[in-house]
Structure formats: C-alpha cells, structure tokens
C-alpha cells in the first residue's frame, strides 16, 4: 500500500505528459472529425433560408419534418438504389476476380512472382488516377480507343455509365482484392490440400471442399470492407460522370457533396446532413456485422 502511494505523483506526471503529447492530434481530429461529426446530427433539424443578396438569414428549426422529407424524396431513393446497384456489382465481381487471380498466382510456377507483382500493382494506383486513365482510354474524341456509344462516350450513356464506373472501381480495387485473397490462400495449411488430394479429391473438388470453406473468413472480410468502400465511392463519379447522365450514377457520397456544396439551392447543407447520416448508418451496420460475425465464420481453434 505504501509503495503505491509513493508512486502516485510520478504516475500523475506521466499521465499529464501523455495528454500533452496527444494534444496536437486531438486538436486536429476535434476540428476536422469530431466537431463536424457531432454537428452533422444537429443540421437536419434546421432549415437555412435562401440568401438575400449577401445577407444570410438565421437558420430555422424545422424538427423531424426535414428528415422525413428527405428520406421520402425521389432523390434519396434514387441515390440509395444507384449505390446499392453499384455495390452489388463491384463487390462480388471484385472478390471473384481477385480470388481467380490469387488462385492462379498461388501455383508454384516459374516466374510467378512477376505476375504477383503485376496483379497487385493497382494497390499503388488511386481511384482518381484510375478514373483519368479510363477517361483517356475511352473518351470518344481524345481517347485511345475512342469508344462511342450512341452519340457520346460510354460515360454519357444512361445504360452504360454505371457499368463504366463499376469497371474502373473493380479494376482499381483488384490489387487489394488479390492481395487479401492471396493472404487467405496462404493461411490454409498445405497439409490440408495434400490430404484432400490423397483422399481422392481432384483439383476442383479440393477447391470446393477445402479451399473455399476455409476461405470464408477472408471472403467475409473482403465483402464487408469492399461494401464499405463501395458505399463511399466518390472520386470516380466526380471525375467521370458527375452523377449523370440523368442521375444514373449519382451515388450516396457524391450526392452528399452535390447537395451541400454545388447545388446552391435552399437549405442544402441541412438536407445533405440527412444523406450523410444515411451513409453513416449503412457503414455502421456493416462494421457491426463484421465485428459480430468475424468469430463465427472463423474455424481456428
């Protein structure tokens, strides 16, 4: 007991020092993350009247009405639908292609490291760069392939704009997907695959009965992380389609940006806050799902 008392002043000093060192980071996070996050929950309850010349009028309290207005609006529904479509295409396709490449690169062949490097190369490419590359390849006037659909480029077609955005996204995320799947494959003991072969399983049967079931934790992880990133897709939309044509590629994240900053209409910032909370809820659900189910899909002892 006495010893502990003697140590107290020292511990106090140490704690104080720790907080002092955390302070700069806390300030940055506070200003750019914590405050805006909290503020975002206040915004939907207010409505900002249009500016009168240079004079901005005070915000008006409107309560839950703005929530229901926004959530029932066609704009929100369309946005959610587009985002959902986008996610349901990019995530499974990204995982499937990543797995395919990972299985191919998992073979013990000469020179396979070259392919591993190539397959994972898009990790070093940002989605913005990928979008610009896609643009310069497919643009109907200045593009390398001069891809033309109807009267315009692929990003101007209501039918093909969303698939085009998906292609860019899948291509850019393929590197990460490949690396995650490769890591998953490498975590499966060789013994198990060999045992299955001796037990009479052919290549496909080994994959179906052993590899794939043991990969479920990895697949689940990739599914959740991929969904979260797809729900937040922004740069490719902003650079290639600006949400068009006719809002066919207006994703949730892009809609938040468009509604709050660009539209210039009335009470937009407040409306956008509802969108933002919608996105937050989706990501929250996915994250909780990930944390809850992670242990259940894991076979390790």
């Amino acid at each position, binding site marked *: 007991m006495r010893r502990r008392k003697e140590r107290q002043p020292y511990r106090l000093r140490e704690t104080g020092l720790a907080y002092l060192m955390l302070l700069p980071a806390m300030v940055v996070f506070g200003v750019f993350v914590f405050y805006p996050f909290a503020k975002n929950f206040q915004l939907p309850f207010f409505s900002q009247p249009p500016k009168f010349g240079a004079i901005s009028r005070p915000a008006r309290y409107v309560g839950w009405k703005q929530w229901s207005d926004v959530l029932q609006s066609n704009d929100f529904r369309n946005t959610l639908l587009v985002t959902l479509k986008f996610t349901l295409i990019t995530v499974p396709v990204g995982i499937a292609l990543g797995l395919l490449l990972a299985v191919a690169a998992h073979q013990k062949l000469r020179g396979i490291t070259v392919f591993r490097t190539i397959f994972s190369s898009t990790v070093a490419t940002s989605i913005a760069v990928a979008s610009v590359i896609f643009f310069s390849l497919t643009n109907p006037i200045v593009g390398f392939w001069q891809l033309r659909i109807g009267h315009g480029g692929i990003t101007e077609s209501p039918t093909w704009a969303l698939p085009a955005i998906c292609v860019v996204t899948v291509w850019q995320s393929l590197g990460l997907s490949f690396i995650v799947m490769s890591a998953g494959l490498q975590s499966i003991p060789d013994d198990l695959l*060999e045992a299955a*072969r001796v037990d009479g*399983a052919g290549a496909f*049967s080994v994959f179906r009965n052993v590899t794939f079931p043991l990969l479920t934790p990895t697949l689940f992880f990739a599914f959740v992380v991929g969904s979260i990133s797809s729900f937040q897709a922004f740069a490719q939309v902003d650079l290639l389609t600006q949400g068009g044509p006719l809002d066919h590629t207006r994703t949730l994240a892009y809609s938040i940006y468009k509604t709050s900053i660009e539209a210039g209409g009335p009470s937009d910032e407040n409306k956008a806050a509802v969108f933002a909370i919608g996105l937050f809820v989706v990501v929250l659900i996915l994250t909780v799902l990930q944390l809850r189910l992670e242990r259940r899909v894991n076979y390790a002892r």
Partner: protein
Amino acid sequence: MGRVAFTHVTKRFGDVVAVDDLTVVVNDGEFFVLLGPSGCGKSTALRMVAGLEEVTEGVIEIGDRAVNRVPPKDRDIAMVFQSYALYPHMTVRRNIEFPLRTREVPRAERNTLVEHAAEILGLDTLLDRKPSQLSGGQRQRVALARAIVRQPEVFLMDEPLSNLDAKLRASTRVELVALQRTLATTVVYVTHDQVEAMTMGDRIAIMFEGALQQVGAPQDVYDKPANRFVAEFIGTPPMNTFAARLVSPDTLAIGAGTLPLDGVVADPATSEVIAGVRPEHLVVTSNDAGSEPGDAATTDGLVGTVTLVESLGHERHTRVRLDTGTELVVRQPASAVALVVGRGVRLRAKAHDVHLYDQASGIRLARDV
C-alpha cells in the same frame, strides 16, 4: 497387392538431391519403417509414393502398377500426416467420410464404413464434434480413422506420433501395430524416432543424406549395422566408435589396450580401422586398473578413467576416457557397483561384440568366422 517398389528413384529440388538412387521393395502386408535424421529424404520418399512430389528419375510402383504419372487421388493410398491435417470445418464424421465421398460411395455404405472405422478407433461418441473440440490424441485417431475407412492398398504415415506426449505415444505405438496386424495392410511409416522404428517395423530402412544406408529387420540392423552411420545412429546411447589398429588377425590395439576379434578380416586394405562396441557390451572388469604394478603388463582390455556417471534409475551410463583421449560410454545395470569419477578402470568386450568399419568409407568390414 500392397507392394511398393522404388527402382533407382531420385528426387532433386533444383540442385539439391533429396533422394539419391533409392532402390527398395516394401512387401505386401509389411510394416515398413523409413528411419533417419531430419533432412535425410525419408519424408520426400514417402511423398513421392503419395504422389505429392514428382519423381525426378526412376520408377515407383504400387502393386504392379508404375505410378509416376498417376495423380494422388487415383493411387489407392491413404496418408496420415504429422499435423493430422483434419479438415477444421467438417465434423469428425465428415472428416472420416471424406475419402468415401470423393469416390462417390453410396450413402448407406458410407455410414456403415464410417461407423465401423470409428468403432475400431473408439471415436463412436465423438462423431459430431469438430476437430477443434478434440484433444491431440483424439485428433490423431480421427486421422487414422480417415485413413483406414477406405481400406486402401497402402497406408502412408508421416511421423504420425510425433505430436503426442511421451506417454500417449508409447500406448498409441502398440495400438497402431495391433491395428496394422488386424488390417494386414502395407504400411510405409516415416519417423526419426528409432524407438518407434525398432518396436513397430517388420523391417526398417535407414536413410542419410538422401541415400539408403541399410534395410533389414530391426534386430539385424541393431546387431550388424552396415556402416558407421547406422552404427552411430541406432541405439541409445549409440555405439562407441574409435580408431584402432589391426595388430594380428585376432587382436585390435587401441592405445596401450587391446580388444579380441573373432574371425579374420577379409583382405584388409590397411591395418587402420574404426572399431565399434555398443555401450552394453563393454564390461568393467577391474575397478582399480593401473593401481596394481603388475597389471600394466596385461594388455587385454582398454584402460581409462571414469569422467562422468549418469544414473537413469534402471541403469547407469558411465563415461570413460581412454588413454588415447577417446571417450566411451559404458551401460551398466543399476545393480552394478557404482564407479567414482576419477577412478581408473579396465574395459573388456567379447570378440563377437566388436564391430569393424573401414576408416575411409565407413563400410562394415566382413569377417570370416
């Protein structure tokens, strides 16, 4: 026919020769042990039989069929891995049943076979558990059950007991041999543990650096090691080996001492040889050698000093340094009079217990009796 034949089999990984020109035949129904230190190529040899490694040169036959180009699934073998390699996502039942499922055995027959195998290995009550809910010994049994369920031509076992604790290993050893006797199926068993090899094998093959050193019944290998490596590898503690000189057809000189020989060494290239005597064949005949003046004239036996006495309870290992500087281990029953460190002793051995090896090649020198 569960015969396995290696004919001039070589396996190279790049420049590394893992198995070097191996020629040996495992007979049908035999418990055959591949024994050697780690890295000697025994596991690679087994994996080539399984089809998990390709054969670089030579031919492997299972039954009467060359299997070099046959994929593992078509080889009619079962393998027990050191790690057991149980499928963690399947229950015990599904694990045992897996080799039957892949061969599309009908459901009813499958159930009968699984239950039979489970009964033999005492797993009846564990069929619905996952491997993660089993103890090490139980997992090992599941691995065995999965191997025997299909009644293959050959069982391949890669150190299946090495992950068990010492007590369980001893009892499982006995059960495994009994199981093999019952099933009368050929077993090729890889181990680095000479106790397993001696107690379980009908015949053992000793490998070192990829090459086969000796094949034979355990007792024959123990009694007549074919070369210096086998002599020093088999036996705990191993055989004492030391430089010696042939002074006459029936006498070996080591420093000031001698050992008797029976028979005549056929055509020795040189008189410098390597002699070997097992620790239990060395007998301490005089506790106070050197202290009696007249004794120095007697050259029968080896003269040395006790440097260390280790008691194992049932026996003692006594280290004796000879006048030539070589240390020998003498194995004595616990009932023998304990020697004191620093004491001068004289060691004797019977003529037929002295082994001779060529100094350069290490090969056993045959003696005409």
